[in-house]
């Protein structure tokens, strides 16, 4: 189908492209000019081949997602009940629910966001709008890339050493969230910087030539037009923060506490650690419970994300170029 619309143009262009096409184009008469030559047919076959290949790869990509979701739903949904979401675990984790872990993870995510989003966005603004291409900028970029490559268990040890011990926050939400914040900072910085750089340069030129300072330009034109992209970075960060186990394990999350956290210096339960423990360490947990926890973890990410996705869609509707 597609080939029919493309081929005539190809055939017409062939004489100019030289080689086999040129010979065919030159020897054919006027009437035969827009028919496919052997070169065109070969091109069309290659075209179809690659089209199919890329399509197949994209479909393969969604298979694991579907598989994971269906497994979790079939195995985990039976664990869901009102009590599952509102009760603390009881009887050696074999009964009760996940309420404290749910609340604890929310605390961790929110405190981590409060720390990393302002820091990351500010750094990205500096790198995108102010920084000149010099040694300092290159050093910062190198640091960001390396920070992104540090394994999470190393972050965990760093958080333990720096926040828990050195700053003496103890095992607390604050220490765990700061560790998570440092770990996800590169995501926020890189995605924000890319969004800022996607704002057309002509807007900045227009602003500067009207006598606006850099900050006025950023405030009035650059940020309003990149807020939806910045939120994408935040979404990515939320997803990662919710699921991380290692960094919170040493710094703030505990296996069990009957109390909900009252402040950032309390320790807390967390979904990811809870899942890890009941799936591998705690004996005699009913088999549907770990799946139920995993499913709730995914649902939690979805709910947190859809809030910001909704906000993003709303903002995109107001985009003006």
């Amino acid at each position: 189908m597609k080939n029919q619309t493309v081929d005539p143009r190809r055939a017409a262009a062939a004489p100019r492209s030289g080689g086999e096409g040129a010979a065919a184009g030159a020897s054919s008469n006027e009437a035969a000019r827009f028919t496919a030559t052997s070169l065109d047919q070969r091109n069309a076959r290659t075209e179809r081949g690659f089209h199919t290949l890329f399509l197949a790869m994209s479909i393969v990509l969604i298979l694991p997602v579907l598989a994971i979701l269906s497994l979790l739903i079939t195995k985990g949904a039976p664990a869901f009940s009102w009590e599952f979401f509102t009760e603390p675990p009881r009887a050696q984790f074999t009964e009760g629910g996940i309420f404290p872990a749910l609340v604890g993870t929310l605390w961790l995510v929110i405190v981590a966001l409060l720390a990393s989003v302002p820091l990351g966005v500010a750094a990205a603004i500096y790198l995108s709008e102010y920084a000149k291409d010099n040694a300092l900028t290159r050093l910062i970029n190198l640091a960001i890339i390396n920070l992104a490559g540090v394994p999470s268990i190393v972050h965990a040890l760093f958080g333990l050493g720096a926040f828990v011990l050195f700053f003496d926050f103890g095992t607390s939400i604050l220490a765990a969230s700061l560790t998570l914040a440092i770990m996800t900072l590169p995501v926020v910085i890189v995605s924000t910087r890319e969004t800022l750089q996607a704002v057309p340069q002509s807007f900045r030129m227009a602003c500067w030539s009207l006598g606006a300072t850099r900050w006025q330009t950023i405030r009035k034109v650059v940020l309003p037009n990149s807020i939806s992209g910045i939120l994408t970075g935040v979404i990515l960060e939320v997803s990662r923060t919710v699921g991380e186990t290692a960094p919170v394990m040493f710094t703030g999350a505990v296996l069990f506490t009957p109390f909900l956290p009252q402040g950032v210096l309390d320790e807390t339960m967390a979904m990811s650690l809870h899942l890890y423990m009941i799936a591998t360490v705690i004996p005699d947990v009913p088999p549907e419970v770990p799946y139920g926890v995993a499913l709730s973890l995914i649902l939690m990410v979805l709910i947190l994300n859809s809030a910001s996705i909704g906000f993003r869609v709303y903002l995109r509707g107001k985009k003006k170029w």
Partner: protein
Amino acid sequence: MAEGTQPLPTPVASGSPAAAASPATAAIRVRDFNLWYGDFQALFNVGIDVTQGKVTSLIGPSGCGKSTLLRSINRINERLGYVRTTGNIELLGQNILAPGVELTPLRRAVGMVFQRPNPLPLSIRDNVLFAYRLSKGGKTDRAEEEQVIQQALEEVLLWDQVKDRLKSSATALSLEEQQKLCIARLLPIKPSVLLMDEPCSALDPKATRAVEELIWKLRGDYSILIVTHNMAQARRASDECIFMLMGEVVEHNATGEMFVTPKHQKTADYIEGRFG
């Protein structure tokens, strides 16, 4: 800071020998100006006078330094970081390259119109008021704003088309309207000089005509320097003409004279389309 220039009496018709402007009437005086992008020298000992209240066009082949020269006059080139200059550029008698010159007031005094219309992604109203609000530190009252908007849009012959949709997005306008809006947003802060970098090259012939007429109408109140690739445009819409080649000024003359009796062979070759 220089408030808007005094409107001059009716400008002399093109064709009169007004080439060598006396210092008193020069809005922009460039002397011995050299500019390097890194190691590459883009401008060589450039010296031009732009007469107050006149339209001066800068012509020359691509890469001859016209836009570079234009962008040096509001110092927007400097954001590149690797630009070096020597020499003088005087705006209304003041050297703008002197240390201590603040860029913000300079850019308010020198309005710039770009090749591709670049209204900000705001409403028409906010576009026109953008520079005005910045210049007032954000403290403007509504009645004052209304008056500023109407005056600016009337001046660029856009008021009647857009007066009922000032709140709609500026980027939804036609290219011609966008370019006029880009001119209109300069006017409330009363610049003395308007720099235009091929202001019509993204427009169709009818819109070009309209914008040219607007430029012609603004002359007198503003000193206008236009970079253009379009010989016909330079010929019909400017009082004076400067021909540049390879970073140097070859000829500066009244437009009528330059197009009829160019002094240099290279000018003649260029305007007759033998190169460039």
